[in-house]
C-alpha cells in the first residue's frame, strides 16, 4: 500500500467568507469551488481540486484530513488493514466530497478522521498547463507552493504513531521522548520530505497547525512582512527556525484561530518507510528542537489547539 501525499485539510470555521479571504489574500491560495456553503481552495503548484475545504461551523478545528493513495486498490487494502487493527472505517462515494473520487474514512485512535482517496478532479497549475510562465504571480498573498503537512494533537501520540506506521505504512523521521520514554512528538512521512503528518501532545481530535511550503527563507521573511502589514495575529515569535527538521518558520492564525505556518527547507527523506531510523530528541534539548534561535518554548505553543 502506498500513501503518496497529504492531499487536503477540511477545516471548521465560524465565518466562511472571512476564512476564504484569509486563505486567498494572506496564504495565497486559489478559490476553486463553492458547494453547499463550503469553500474549496488550492495552492498554485497542485493540480487537484482542493487542498483546503472550509466548512461553516460554530467552532474552529479540523473536520478531517485527506491523503492520496497511489492505486485505487489501495483503498480496499487500507480499509481492510484499518478494520483488522480495530479502527472504525466508512466508505465515501465519489463526489460526496466535491471534486473527489470515492474514498475510505478511517477514525484514528486520536479520533481524528483520515480520508484516503485516489481520484481528484484536475484544475491544473496556477501558471496554466500549456507553455507556462515559470514565475508565479507576484501579487497574491504568501508565495505558497503547496499545503505540506499538519500537526494534530493526541492524548497518546505513541499509539497513533504505531497505527499510522504499522497499518498505513508511514515512516517516522523524528521524535521527541520524555524522560519516562514516552513519545511526546512524532514526525511522520509518506511522501518525499520529513513530515506529512505530525503528532503532538494535547486533546484528541484537535489541530495544532497546518503548514504551507514556500520556496526559501526569503519567502518566509516576505510572509512575515505580509502578516505584519495585514495585521494577522502571529505566534509569540516572528521568523524562527525549528531545530527539528531545521526549517525556517512563522506561525499565524486564520480568522477562526486555526494555526497556520509558512515554512521552507524541509529535508528530503530517502529510502523506504520504516527502514530509515528516526532522529530522537530528548526533553533537555527540546526547547532548541522546537525553536532553535530562541531556545525556549512558550507555554502557548502546545496548549492552544483548535
Amino acid at each position, binding site marked *: 500500500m502506498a500513501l503518496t501525499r497529504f492531499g487536503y485539510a477540511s477545516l471548521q470555521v*465560524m*465565518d466562511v467568507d472571512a476564512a476564504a479571504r484569509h486563505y486567498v489574500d494572506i496564504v495565497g491560495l486559489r478559490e476553486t469551488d463553492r458547494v453547499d456553503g463550503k469553500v474549496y481552495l488550492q495552492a498554485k503548484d497542485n493540480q487537484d481540486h482542493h487542498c483546503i475545504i472550509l466548512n461553516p461551523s460554530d*467552532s*474552529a*478545528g479540523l473536520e478531517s484530513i485527506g491523503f492520496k493513495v497511489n492505486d485505487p486498490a489501495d483503498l480496499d487494502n487500507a480499509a481492510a488493514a484499518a478494520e483488522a487493527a480495530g479502527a472504525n472505517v466508512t466508505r465515501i462515494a465519489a463526489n460526496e466530497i466535491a471534486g473527489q473520487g470515492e474514498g475510505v474514512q478511517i477514525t484514528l485512535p486520536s479520533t481524528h478522521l483520515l480520508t484516503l482517496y485516489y481520484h481528484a478532479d484536475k484544475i491544473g497549475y496556477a501558471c496554466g498547463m500549456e507553455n507556462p510562465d515559470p514565475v508565479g504571480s507576484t501579487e497574491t498573498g504568501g508565495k505558497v507552493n503547496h499545503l505540506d503537512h499538519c500537526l494534530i494533537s493526541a492524548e497518546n501520540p505513541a499509539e497513533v504513531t504505531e497505527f499510522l506506521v504499522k497499518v498505513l505504512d508511514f515512516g517516522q523521521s523524528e521524535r521527541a521522548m520524555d524522560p519516562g520514554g514516552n513519545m511526546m512528538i512524532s514526525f511522520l512521512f509518506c511522501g518525499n520530505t520529513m513530515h506529512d503528518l505530525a503528532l503532538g501532545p494535547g486533546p484528541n481530535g484537535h489541530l495544532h497547525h497546518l503548514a504551507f511550503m514556500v520556496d526559501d527563507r526569503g519567502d518566509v521573511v516576505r510572509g512575515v512582512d505580509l502578516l505584519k502589514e495585514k495585521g494577522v495575529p502571529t*505566534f509569540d515569535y516572528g521568523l524562527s527556525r525549528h531545530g527539528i527538521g531545521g526549517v525556517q518558520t512563522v506561525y499565524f*492564525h486564520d480568522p477562526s*484561530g486555526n494555526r497556520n505556518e509558512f515554512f521552507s527547507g524541509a529535508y528530503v527523506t530517502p529510502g523506504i518507510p520504516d527502514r530509515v531510523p528516526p532522529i530522537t530528541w530528548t526533553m533537555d534539548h527540546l526547547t532548541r528542537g522546537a525553536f532553535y534561535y530562541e531556545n525556549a518554548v512558550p*507555554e502557548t505553543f502546545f496548549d492552544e*489547539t483548535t
Partner: protein
Amino acid sequence: MQHQITFLDTRGGSVRFSCRTEQAISRAAEEAGVLIRIACDNGGCGACQAEMQSGAIRYLAPISEKQRRDRRSGELRYELLCRAVPTEDTTFLIRRPWRRINRQPMSNLLAQLQN
C-alpha cells in the same frame, strides 16, 4: 461608555480596570498593564478563557463554541476575552495567570495610542 472589569485568580489575587463598551476586554486589560495569555486573538484557540462570575458580555465577532466548554464535562464554562466586550460591570475568574507590567508615563501614552 465604560464598565469596570475585575479579574480574580485562583489564589485570591485580583485586579480592576475599566473597559470601553466597544473594546475587547483583553485590550483594555493590556492598556491597564494586565497581560493575560493571548495566542490566536481570533476567538478560536482558548488561550484567553475566563469564567464569568457576574456581569454580562457580548462578542465582537464569532468565537469557537467548543472553546467555551469544559473539555471533560462538555459544560458551558468559559468566555473568550480576546473577543468579549462588557455590557455591564463584570467579574472573571481567569484560567491562566496574568502578568502585571508597571508602565512608565511614556509607555502609558504609547499603549493608549496603540489601542
